[in-house]
């Protein structure tokens, strides 16, 4: 009964966007065919689908390459971001001195930084991973910092009253209460890390083995296969969605018992 109810509710929630998608795809197909648009300018949805199916092995391999850079970048950004946020929340003077530059650094586009990374680390996985890290780290730092600085003052006083050390206050109080913020930061970072990896691949990607999706896009573009460009973009979006979904699921499992955002 409740399961059937859940299905009904899911269908009810899902039909408007699904219908929208079908209408858009059909309209695209019709307009492109009717106007006889050149394939290399805008490929019809059916052409993109065909490219997706024909090159599925290649695209899947590329997706794995990009995924590993994005996930590694994401993992490093999470660990490093949390550590930096702890440092900033502990030393207010450091926070005041450093934070403005971090905000500034955050506005510098990765594409501009990527060539420098290639000079330092050479083209390939390292540089691409660092690109993903650079775009993913700021939301994690900013959100974790907010969480660490908004610990319930009464609880901090209680910990103080029982002589809690800095370390146990951090571990037993401040980090767990910042967890919802950390998850929010990671959620934002998950999509960004894929973008960072692909942009990194534009500049620092290499052609050997399974090239990443960014490289795939560049090559497809160069040989005039716009349908393949679009297929690669779809694969990149799918990757972003999978990463976002994974973080969401992890967040849900961690927070469902106690945090209002994940209850029900």
């Amino acid at each position: 009964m409740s399961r059937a109810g859940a299905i009904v509710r899911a269908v009810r929630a899902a039909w408007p966007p699904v219908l929208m998608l079908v209408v858009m795809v059909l309209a695209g197909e019709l307009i492109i065919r009717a106007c006889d648009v050149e394939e290399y300018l805008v490929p019809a949805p059916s052409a993109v689908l065909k490219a997706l199916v024909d090159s599925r092995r290649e695209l899947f391999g590329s997706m794995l390459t990009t995924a590993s850079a994005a996930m590694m970048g994401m993992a490093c950004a999470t660990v490093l971001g949390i550590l930096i946020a702890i440092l900033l929340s502990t030393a207010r003077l450091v926070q005041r001195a450093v934070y403005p530059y971090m905000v500034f650094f955050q506005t510098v586009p990765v594409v501009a930084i990527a060539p420098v990374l290639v000079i330092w680390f050479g083209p390939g996985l390292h540089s691409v991973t660092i690109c993903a890290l650079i775009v993913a780290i700021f939301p994690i730092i900013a959100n974790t910092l907010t969480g660490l600085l908004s610990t319930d003052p009464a609880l901090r006083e209680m910990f103080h009253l029982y002589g809690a050390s800095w370390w146990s206050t951090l571990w037993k109080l401040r980090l767990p209460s910042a967890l919802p913020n950390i998850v929010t930061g990671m959620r934002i970072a998950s999509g960004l890390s894929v973008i960072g990896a692909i942009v990194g691949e534009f500049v620092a990607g290499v052609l050997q083995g399974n090239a990443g999706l960014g490289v795939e896009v560049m090559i497809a573009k160069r040989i005039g296969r716009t349908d393949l460009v679009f297929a690669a973009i779809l694969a990149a979006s799918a990757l972003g969605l999978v990463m976002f979904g994974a973080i969401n699921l992890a967040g849900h499992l961690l927070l469902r018992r106690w945090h209002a955002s994940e209850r029900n």
Partner: protein
Amino acid sequence: MSVAAEISHGTGVSVSITSVSKVYDGDVQALQSVSLDIPAGQFLSILGPSGCGKSTLLRIIAGLDEPSTGEIRIDGVLQRPGDRRTGTAFVFQDAHLLPWRTVLRNVEVPLELLGTPRQRRRELAMHAIEEVGLADAIRRYPAQLSGGMRMRVSLARALVTRPKLLLLDEPFAALDEFTRQNLDEQLLALWQHTGMTVIFVTHSIAEAVFLSQRAAVFSRRPARLLDDIAIPLPANRTIETRSDPVFVEIARQVQQVMKGQVDE
């Protein structure tokens, strides 16, 4: 220092407050030369208009804030700022539990911070939880409890270290009348069988008279001690106590003192 000794069933401590004044930020005077001597094991209530400085006084006794002038002695020992006041527990107006911990693990927090071994921690926490009548709820999370149950957990957490001095700042103010009376009776029973000293801040005259042996009434800000009223009711207090002529007379008397503060 042995933890077992620290948390063994102790009798209360005496608290002596001598000419304590508090000025916030140079101009808000919250306390004006307050002196009070509280013998070991006494149950004292503090009454006064909102914003007069009751919480300030309680926080100074707990060592969470420093007096501008004057001194606090506990069992004759002068308290210096920054001293750890082991043996003191504080209950806030709201429960302030750690939402990511179950009831049992919440009550264990003070023991964890004091370094009590795991096994002993469990035992003491279970005992404290039984004392407040929540044995059925040990595995639940705070979000799954009612307001009254949360406050009980907060009380158990304060009692788990067997404090010699229990400070409560309007602990049951947010609860409905029925739950509040129920908790009042439980607190009274706990005080009777532990012998600790209790200082209880409240807005409710009936609650103060019902619970305590003595009521200190403060003036509007800056708080001065207006009246110090002994409450010669029998130790064993029940629902009937509230219609006892002594109860009614003292409640009237306190009312009279408080009224002057509002009309002035």
